[in-house]
């Protein structure tokens, strides 16, 4: 028997062993070794495709430019009036009152601002960002959002979340294995949170009238009205913030002296200086400064002294988990532009488990039926085909494990389907062999010619199936991609097992095949 070893059977044996060895980690679900990843539809989890409102990043970029302009002008004691943001044109505007200062103002601003066009029309200055800068800001907003969301999810302590840019302007977020609804909610909050921290001056001159003032009237005074986070109170705040969260270096969830959960934050040098300068002026009139997070006022204490060191705190109606999540969001940075849901799929773990059980059962049953049919119809030839089929299954699992491929529910269907298609090759071959045997050819000749006659048909059929699988992979998303993947691997593996492998087995067994027992070997009477 050993003398009949041929390259085909050796290759097949090698493939079989390879398949078994590398599918062991997946089958035994061991901790070491490469395994197949279950898709979100099977293990449960959250899949989101997020869109991003990049125009908003441009708007907030203008706001931060306005903040810088205000700071630069104040710092140089320039005499200006009517500093505001024109919402129609997205420009920062002001009037310089001293004509001797025109050139100097332009020079100061040019030194501190990049990517802007400064136009002076008599005493009126207008500052707009260049189209390139706007484009860059938008692009930056996307990549920054990807980084920020990834950062937040990592810090939240999740196992292997995926955050990636998809297409030009979308973000794919995949979080497998979410155990509870509560966790899912927190994760969504964490992703959605803009974490836009601002410190804004209260407009003390008009603050008393805030409850009756309209937004339009506030706008006239270059103010905005923002609500309190827990009470119905409203605040009238200067439109241009003193500083924002981009100058933040750290944020922590701690407890205050009353054992309430709060968040403390630290500003960088520049932020600390601006904060110090502001408080140095404001304490003289006991003016208030509001801590604003995502357009809600958390507190607005009176400034009683000059505050150096650049430390602050956010206190509100927080739970411990909330302070933890807000601190994570602040540390990871603000989202420059808000994100919104384009597509979301959330699968509970129990549904995934049910799907696995159902398709496993269908897979097994389909398998057993095909197995029995082949043996019943073709005799030993069927057994050989079944051996190839088993090898094929192991190979699919092994290749997928090695690539760390994702198995989805349609992917399992793909395996089931491959079972049907893989035996097809053996049906074609065995039918050809039967034909030749009926014509009275010798067993050796029938096998040899049977394989060569059947080959072109199997090859062409497999290539065309592969064409549609590849197209499906290129155009499909998520689970459907998984289907195309398992089917492609299955087809390729079947070339090795169903054609080469079975051929090798026949060659090896040839001396044993009794011409008078063709009924047992090929299921035919001649």
């Amino acid at each position: 028997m050993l003398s009949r070893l041929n390259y085909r059977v050796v290759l097949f044996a090698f493939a079989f062993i390879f398949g078994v060895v590398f599918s062991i980690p997946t089958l035994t679900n061991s901790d070491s070794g490469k395994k197949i990843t279950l898709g979100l539809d099977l293990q449960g989890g959250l899949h989101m495709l997020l869109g991003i409102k990049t125009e908003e990043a441009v708007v907030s970029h203008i706001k931060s430019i306005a903040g810088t302009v205000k700071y630069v002008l104040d710092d140089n004691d320039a005499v200006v009036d009517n500093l505001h943001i024109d919402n129609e044109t997205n420009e920062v505007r002001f009037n310089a009152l001293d004509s001797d200062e025109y050139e100097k103002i332009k020079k100061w601003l040019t030194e501190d601002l990049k990517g802007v066009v400064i136009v002076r029309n008599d005493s009126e200055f207008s500052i707009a960002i260049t189209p390139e800068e706007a484009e860059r800001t938008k692009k930056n907003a996307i990549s920054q959002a990807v980084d920020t969301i990834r950062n937040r999810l990592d810090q939240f302590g999740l196992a292997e979340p995926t955050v990636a840019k998809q297409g030009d302007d979308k973000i794919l977020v995949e979080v497998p294995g979410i155990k509870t609804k509560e966790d899912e909610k927190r994760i969504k909050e964490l992703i959605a949170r803009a974490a836009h921290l601002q410190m804004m001056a209260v407009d003390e001159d008009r603050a008393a009238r805030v409850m009756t003032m309209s937004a339009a009237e506030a706008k006239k005074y270059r103010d905005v009205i923002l609500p309190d986070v827990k009470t119905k109170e409203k605040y009238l705040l200067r439109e241009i913030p003193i500083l924002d969260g981009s100058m933040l270096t750290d944020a922590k969830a701690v407890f205050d002296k009353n054992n309430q959960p709060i968040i403390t934050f630290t500003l960088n040098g520049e932020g600390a200086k601006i904060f110090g300068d502001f408080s140095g002026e404001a304490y003289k009139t006991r003016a208030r400064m509001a801590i604003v997070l995502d357009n809600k006022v958390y507190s607005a204490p009176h400034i009683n002294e000059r505050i150096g060191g650049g430390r602050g705190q956010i206190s509100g109606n927080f739970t411990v988990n909330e302070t933890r999540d807000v601190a994570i969001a602040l540390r990871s940075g603000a989202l420059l532009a808000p994100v919104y849901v384009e597509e979301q799929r959330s699968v509970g773990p129990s549904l995934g488990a049910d799907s696995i059980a159902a398709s496993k059962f269908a897979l097994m049953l389909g398998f057993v039926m095909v197995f029995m049919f082949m043996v019943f119809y073709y005799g030993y030839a069927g057994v050989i085909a079944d051996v190839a089929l088993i090898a094929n299954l192991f190979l699919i699992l092994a290749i997928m494990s090695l690539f760390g491929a994702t198995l989805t529910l349609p992917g399992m269907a793909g395996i089931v389907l491959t079972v049907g298609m893989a035996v097809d090759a053996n049906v074609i071959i065995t039918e050809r062999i039967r034909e030749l045997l009926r014509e009275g050819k010798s067993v050796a000749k029938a096998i040899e010619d049977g394989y060569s006659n059947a080959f072109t048909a199997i090859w062409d059929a497999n290539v065309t199936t592969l064409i549609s699988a590849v197209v499906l992979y290129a155009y499909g998303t998520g689970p459907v991609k998984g289907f195309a993947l398992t089917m492609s691997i299955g087809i390729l593996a079947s070339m090795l097992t169903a054609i080469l492998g079975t051929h090798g087995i026949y060659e090896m067994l040839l001396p044993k095949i009794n011409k008078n027992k063709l009924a047992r070997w090929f299921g035919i009477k001649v």
Partner: protein
Amino acid sequence: MELFNYTKPINLMGMSRKFGILSIVMVLLSWGLLMTKGFNYGIDFAGGTLIQVKYEGDAPISKIREDLKQNPLYKNANVTYFGSNTEVVIRIKSSPTAVNKDIGAEVSGLLKDTGKLEIRRVDIVGASIGAEFRNKGLMAMMLAIIGILLYVSVRFEWRFAVASVLALVHDVSIAIGAIILFNVEVNLDILAALLTLLGYSLNDTIIVFDRIREGIRGIKNPNLTGIINESVTRTLSRTVLTSLTTFFVVFTLDFFGGEIIHGFSFTLLVGVIVGTYSSIFVASPILLWLGFDVKGFRLKEAEKLKREKEKDKMRAQYEQGTL
């Protein structure tokens, strides 16, 4: 065991007129359905929100509908059983865009008086993504067909390619007709099933065509009808057996695979049947109608062979130094 034992060609092409009419009627009916009733698009393509809820006992579907009305978002919700009496899916047309909106909690809250329940799945697809999926799906379908057409043209001959693609269109059309007729919800998995069907049905056709190609070269009588009849008859056993094994597995998948995979397996089930039928009664007759010049083909082949032989002879002479 032998179910088929080739003795003489069955006059399959003789029946092609009857089956041709049947096929044309089926395809036209399917197109008619597509144009009048149209697809029952699921949220993947139409956009919207789907919530799957499992109850501990039977789901009180009318009370669910009633209770959902408390919230205007769910006023026109469509509630149906899903696979069994204990599970329902709620579908709404809108797709909330706020990342932190917790649809699951919202629905649990609305349905708190309907029994002990578990939210198992929440899918949201925005309208623009749905449209993108639709375009991509169509594009995938076209590309697959073009790719297959090219491959078959290269490997066989243009008439084979045209015949196989017409058979594909026939199969996909009828599968689409069945999807619409049985009101199967069309989502991404149905697209996957239709593309698989493309591959599968072509598989069958190619195996028959391979035999015809072989027959054109080898069968003595140069009558195309005879050649096709003999070739198709010879592959009949394989065609039926493979379809049977594939049918087994798809059937078990459809029967036991669970509700989520039902649309997918149903489409394939129809596809397997139609694909088998079309490889015998659609693709081959079309080839016959397109007319293949067997004699001309053989002459060309013979000439090719002659040229090659001459070349070999020359080479041999050259190598022996006689030239």
